[in-house]
């Protein structure tokens, strides 16, 4: 099963390597990992997407909690939550493709944030499925570059991850 694990961790040098090292040392899978400071600059928030059985996910959350710098860990996918990812896609946009690309970007509520004579950069946010759907909807041969942030997530309503 796919799980989205959110971590509040001390914003110290090496915190990221402690987390990523834990995953590689114990053979856990990381689909994506994002990290950035929170409104409190001494704390970082990390979102990790991992796939594993319930036993493995239980061990992952326990092992993450065991890291000395970890303040809190929560498995967002245990309850209602929202996940978002940002993707930038640079595409070839010439001739008839130029209009078509604009149209598809609009359908996916993407924004074109860079324009040259022959290229667009499309900015898209949404969940992982939407990113995939967009890439499927355009002509693959027109894609020049893709860059994705990986998933970040937050609980719905009163579920709050805070110190």
């Amino acid at each position, binding site marked *: 099963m796919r799980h989205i694990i959110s971590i509040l*961790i001390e914003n110290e040098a090496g915190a990221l*390597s402690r987390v990523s*090292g834990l995953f590689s040392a114990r053979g856990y899978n990381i689909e994506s990992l994002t990290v950035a400071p929170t409104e409190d600059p001494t704390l970082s928030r990390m979102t990790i997407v991992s796939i594993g059985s319930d036993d493995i996910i239980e061990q992952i959350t326990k092992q993450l909690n065991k890291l*000395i710098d970890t303040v809190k860990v929560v498995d967002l996918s245990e309850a209602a939550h929202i996940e978002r990812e940002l993707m930038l896609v640079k595409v070839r946009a010439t001739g008839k493709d130029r209009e078509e690309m604009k149209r598809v970007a609009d359908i996916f509520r993407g924004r074109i944030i860079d324009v040259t004579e022959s290229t667009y950069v499309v900015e898209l946010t949404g969940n992982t499925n939407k990113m995939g759907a967009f890439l499927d909807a355009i002509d693959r041969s027109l894609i020049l570059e893709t860059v994705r942030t990986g998933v970040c997530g937050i609980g719905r309503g009163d579920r709050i991850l805070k110190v």
Partner: protein
Amino acid sequence: MQLTGAEIVIRCLQEEKVEHVFGYPGGSVLFIYDELFKQDQIKHILVRHEQAAVHAADAYSRSSNKIGVCLVTSGPGVTNAVTGIATAHMDSIPLVVISGQVPTAYIGQDAFQEADTVGITRPCVKHNFLVKDVKDLADTIKKAFYLAKTGRPGPVLVDIPKDITAKKCDFHYPKTISMRSYNPVVKGHTGQIKKALQLLLDAKRPMIYAGGGVILSDAADKLTKMTRLLGFPITQTLMGLGGYPATDRQSLGMLGMHGTYEANMAMQECDVLLAVGARFDDRVIGSPDHFAKVARKIIHIDIDPSSISKRVRVDVPIVGNVPDVLDELIKQIQVSEAKAEPKALASWWKQIEGWRSRNSLKYKMGSDLIMPQYVVEKLYEVTGGDAFVTSDVGQHQMWAAQYYKFDKPRRWINSGGLGTMGFGLPAAMGVRFANPKATVACITGEGSIQMNIQELSTCKQFHLPVKILCLNNGYLGMVRQWQQMFHGNRYAESYVDALPDFVKLAEAYGHVGLRIDKPADVEPAIREAFVKHKNHLVFLDFQTDKTANVYPMVAAGKGLSEMILAEEEL
């Protein structure tokens, strides 16, 4: 008053009441050594290799429950120490390792004797720090001591760049530390403890399984009290030996890969299992699938939540400090109206006595060849079962664990988790510093002892009268045993050719060496070592049966009840 970083390091160690530091100097730690030189509160033990410094500090801690401290230089100083740190980490031993680092401005420049210490040690420490500002130094060292000892203990490393040891700032050593990210649980959940008690009292075939957590948390007396109150059988892991008196009738001895028949059978067949400070590792329960074939309820007391339900599903987890949880459990047992059903318990004991009567530790002894088991038995007799026994890793380690009956905790000092050859001799040194009058024996093999034999020099310098009992069979015995059993008798590289004359070697280092070839000479030689040469290091080189194997044995991946009991079953 302003102090230099080096002065601060020493002041911090003094504040922590550190008496011994095991270490080896080098460029990056020269300022710290200079400050060590200027004081006499802390004694520095100069080893001959950094790995030995860490093993010695580790055994110092294992045998005393103090925090072991070592000091090494940057680069190779640290990389040499890594095996020692990993050894301590696997067995949850509280250490503070202080390492020098190249000056801050040189970090990342591939400077002389530079290594990414924090990166290299990260997977084998409880936590580590790189100190980038002298103002953080005192706080960081305080945190290191706090982290090492609280919760599930472990080694903590503090990496200090050379320029930080020269810079000055005001010194203030914090009295206490609080970290929002680290708050280990102490007390167990009362409701869970109640549930556990109910299960225990309802059990028909109860079993207690105790591990190293009992020793680490100084809970042996409480475990003993509870076990006697309940009247249940108890087994211990390799790391848990001494947590309950081995000579007591309720003790079934060690379990696991080389556990006794009765311990393994009872472990497999019990209907309620109380695990205390143990982690169901592969050498203990064998195959988890085979273990799960018998339905049983499991209660697991451990301070580390990640040890619970890791390899085996647990019914009643109790996260907490073992002695605190046992205290509560004992209290509840004492006030409880209900008692365990005596009839069921009696018939369970009858079954266990049946298993015990197979005498799975018996071995054949002739008059020509020294059996290694016999040496350990004689050591036990001569020392009255009261020695501190360190060991290296391999067959001799298992025989030591099987035949030396440990009645007290912290007497059995071995590398259980990592299985580090070369541990025994430096460990014996550490034990002796922590227990200056104690009788210390190191049971080793001719393979293991050569992995840190340079420490014979340290032993001479510090007049450490440890007794080394080398069970010399000319083979890396445990490797040979596996090759015999699982690799068609092809003894690939397990024969140790060109062995030194250990007697002469011991003498060259200024010690006493004895070579023993006949069974009849075993006991007299041990007596000679412990009585006549009481104040000297004696190297006893026992020429033992080259073909002896450790039994019983549960082959890797097999189930606990699938033991090979003797040669004839191969």
